[in-house]
């Protein structure tokens, strides 16, 4: 395979954003008939590299050649015309159109009187069949499909447009194991037809199952290119994070508290649910305890958290705090009950981008106090100093707009914002997603410390290892339903949680 010329070659690619060099002289080579995976921690520059290739971002320096010719694409459409298609992590389709229209959009079969819909839909059906989706009706609205199937429909699009290079940017994060297998089958078929596939994923198992070649990036820099069978997992991880493996071991310890100690209840959910979102759920939240929510994306873990924190409204059931039923219809009602919530979507539901770190930190305290009693500059400075120091926010400049901070530091400010309100229940939805390893472990430490001080914490993460490591108790959810509550201990690990779900399914 390596004997052929690469279909895409990128050398010395540099991309700069205001104040940041996102990519620094990075190279990448894609050969036809090969699956090439880009590996790297969040923020390593994987997505940036892809967007540099397809022309979404301007390349500040470097050379891109496609089939031997020096090229700069002006955008995804331009790249697509040269046979480079991209499927993104977030499904990028139009929910207002039918499945078939989405598959064929821009490639509709045309006749003398414009688009011939019957033929167009027939072709869509054929393409879907190739992906094992022959049971889908191309005329049905796309919105009737689950996110996972929509992702496969997005891949079907790229088959239609005679792709030479298929880029899959974390396509598996919303797929389950069976769907991943279907996807891999498709990838192998395409690879054998001579398509070059660029794959991004951080699931190591998947990477080893499918890829022929790996390129590792770290902090926007090129670390190395390897054939998959030549590098083992530990070496790979070490390359990705630039640390020795032994230094990671320290993070693997579980919560070392007496699991049998009696706990005082903070809040209790009695049949709390919302129609079509989460079935009635009964659950107790204890003081000084980290309660983990385990489950897939869409299992109802986020939805339940949002009901507890007033972000969404429950249709049924009651929530009681200290034995008294309370009504949490809006976030501010929950905040008044000393409940704090950080959303999984930091950019859209967490930070107030244009405001400074100081204003972001103070805002929740201010909202709680009401608009009339302004938090004085002195109080604000005191809060800012406390939390910047305690959470190690870098840069420690309270006047900088929060949007100019890295993801990890934004997350710390958001956490600080809620700690400043002195909550008794802290609900953290994916607080460690998309942030670097250092910030991740710092946030984990803060969570454990808070629980140690008697706070009740709900911790949600799609990384089950993290849930197992931090939680005292684990609520397992599936299909909008709480299916099990596990007390964490030596016999609980990722495997047993997976098994719990599988058994429930069999029953």
């Amino acid at each position, binding site marked *: 395979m390596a004997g052929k010329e690469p279909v895409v070659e990128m050398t010395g690619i540099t991309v700069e954003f205001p104040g940041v060099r996102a990519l620094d002289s990075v190279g990448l080579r894609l050969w036809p008939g090969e699956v090439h995976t880009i590996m790297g921690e969040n923020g390593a520059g994987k997505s940036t590299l892809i967007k540099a290739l397809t022309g979404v971002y301007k390349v500040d320096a470097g050379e891109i050649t496609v089939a031997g010719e020096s090229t700069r694409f002006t955008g995804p459409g331009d790249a697509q015309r040269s046979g480079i298609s991209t499927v993104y992590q977030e499904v990028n389709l139009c929910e207002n159109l039918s*499945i078939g229209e989405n598959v064929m959009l821009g490639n509709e079969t045309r006749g003398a009187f414009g688009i011939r819909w019957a033929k167009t839909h027939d072709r869509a059906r054929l393409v879907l069949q190739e992906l094992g989706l022959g049971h889908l009706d191309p005329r049905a609205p796309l919105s009737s499909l689950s996110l996972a199937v929509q992702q496969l429909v997005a891949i079907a699009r790229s088959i239609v447009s005679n792709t030479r290079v298929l880029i899959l940017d974390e396509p598996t994060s919303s797929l389950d194991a069976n769907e991943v297998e279907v996807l891999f089958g498709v990838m192998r078929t395409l690879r054998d037809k001579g398509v070059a596939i660029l794959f991004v994923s951080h699931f190591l198992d998947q990477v080893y199952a499918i890829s022929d070649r790996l390129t590792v990036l770290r902090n926007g820099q090129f670390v190395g290119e390897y054939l998959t069978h030549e590098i083992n997992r530990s070496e790979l991880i070490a390359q990705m994070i630039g640390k020795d493996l032994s230094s990671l071991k320290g993070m693997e310890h579980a919560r070392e508290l007496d699991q049998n100690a009696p706990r005082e209840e903070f809040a209790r959910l009695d049949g709390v649910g919302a129609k079509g979102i989460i079935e009635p759920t009964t659950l107790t939240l204890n003081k000084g305890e980290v309660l983990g929510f385990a489950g897939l994306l869409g299992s109802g873990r986020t939805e339940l958290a949002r009901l507890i924190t007033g972000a969404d409204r429950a249709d049924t059931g009651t929530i009681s705090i200290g034995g008294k039923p309370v009504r949490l219809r809006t976030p501010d009602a929950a905040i008044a009950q000393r409940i704090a919530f950080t959303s999984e979507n930091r950019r859209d539901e967490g930070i107030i981008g244009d405001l400074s770190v100081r204003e972001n930190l103070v805002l929740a305290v201010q909202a709680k106090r009401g608009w009339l009693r302004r938090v004085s500059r002195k109080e604000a400075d005191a809060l800012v100093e406390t939390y910047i120091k305690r959470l190690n926010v870098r840069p420690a400049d309270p006047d900088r707009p929060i949007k100019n901070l890295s993801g990890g530091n934004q997350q710390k400010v958001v956490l600080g914002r809620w700690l400043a309100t002195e909550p008794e229940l802290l609900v953290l939805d994916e607080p460690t997603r998309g942030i670097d390893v250092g910030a991740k472990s710092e946030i984990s430490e803060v969570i454990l410390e808070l629980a140690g001080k008697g706070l009740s914490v709900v911790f949600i993460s799609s990384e089950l290892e993290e849930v197992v490591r931090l939680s005292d108790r684990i609520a397992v959810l599936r299909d909008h339903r709480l299916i099990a509550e596990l007390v964490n201990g030596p016999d609980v690990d990722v495997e047993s949680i997976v098994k719990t779900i599988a058994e429930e399914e069999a029953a």
Partner: protein
Amino acid sequence: MSTTLTRPRPTAAQPARRGRGSLLDALPTIASVAILLLMFVYGEAAYGKIFQYNTISNLFINSSYLIILAVGMTFVILTGGIDLSVGSVIAVSSLTGVFMANAGLPVVIVIPVTILVGSLFGLMSGVLVQYFNVQPFIATLAMMFLARGIASIMATTPVRLDDDSSFRSLSEPIKLIDGPKTNDLVVTPSVIIMILVVVAAVLVLKRTRFGRTVYAIGGAENSAGLMGLPVARTKLWVYLISGTLAGLAAVVYTSRTGIAQNVTGVGWELDAIAAVVIGGTMLTGGYGFVLGSVVGALVIGMMTLLITRDGTVPPEATTIITGGILLVFVLLQRVVLLRKKKKA
């Protein structure tokens, strides 16, 4: 690293949702057709002489400019945009046309230039929206005032089209069915132009890639771009179409009234938006039909007709009623949208 679990349920399409979804989509359109029919029936019962050839003919003749405007507005609203400039553009276009016609220029030059004046404003809106990222309502609001200002520089008093101008021939009635007395079914060249515009728009939206891109942009603009569709070009075209059709509407309107004025078309953007919204096109974009907008324009035309027949409603109240109807339909859309979200 993480572990992937198996999601137990089959993830195939759930057809149960489909039927209800599409019914919900069609609800505003059904409502508008029902309202139009009700207006006919009520009009016949209360004032009479509704179901007859000349009333129907007049309804179409008088609504043709609004239907043309509404067709252009449909394109813009389908992409999730808005064009507030159409009313003022008509004033500039029709003043340009009348001045040129009265200067003795041949109609084959006058009409294209009148239309192109509209295209020019559409182009400017489109460039502002697409290339400079100005919010559509701001860009077109600026164009609205720019056009109105230019119209006021051109003339502040009504300008009459010469009586012998061939411009007027566009409104010469053509008898289709000769009824008793004056009760004839007639069309004018303007009505035929309007019908051609509607047919062309339906075909473009349904049967061309451009049309599908319009819907895709309204559904998810970002996705449309990432799917490689020509978003920028399409958005530019949409405003260009709206401006051009405003120019055409100016031709149609001027040929009928024979008068151009700097205050022509004040508030017509609201009528056009109302027609589109009443016809079932979502203000947020992505859903809707041209034929719906035609129904919407007829509802407004019928409303004017009924108000005239009634005679007790002060003419000042017309805008209040149009505004009220628009508001009701926007609220209806809001309900539909919320229902949809809840189901998703």
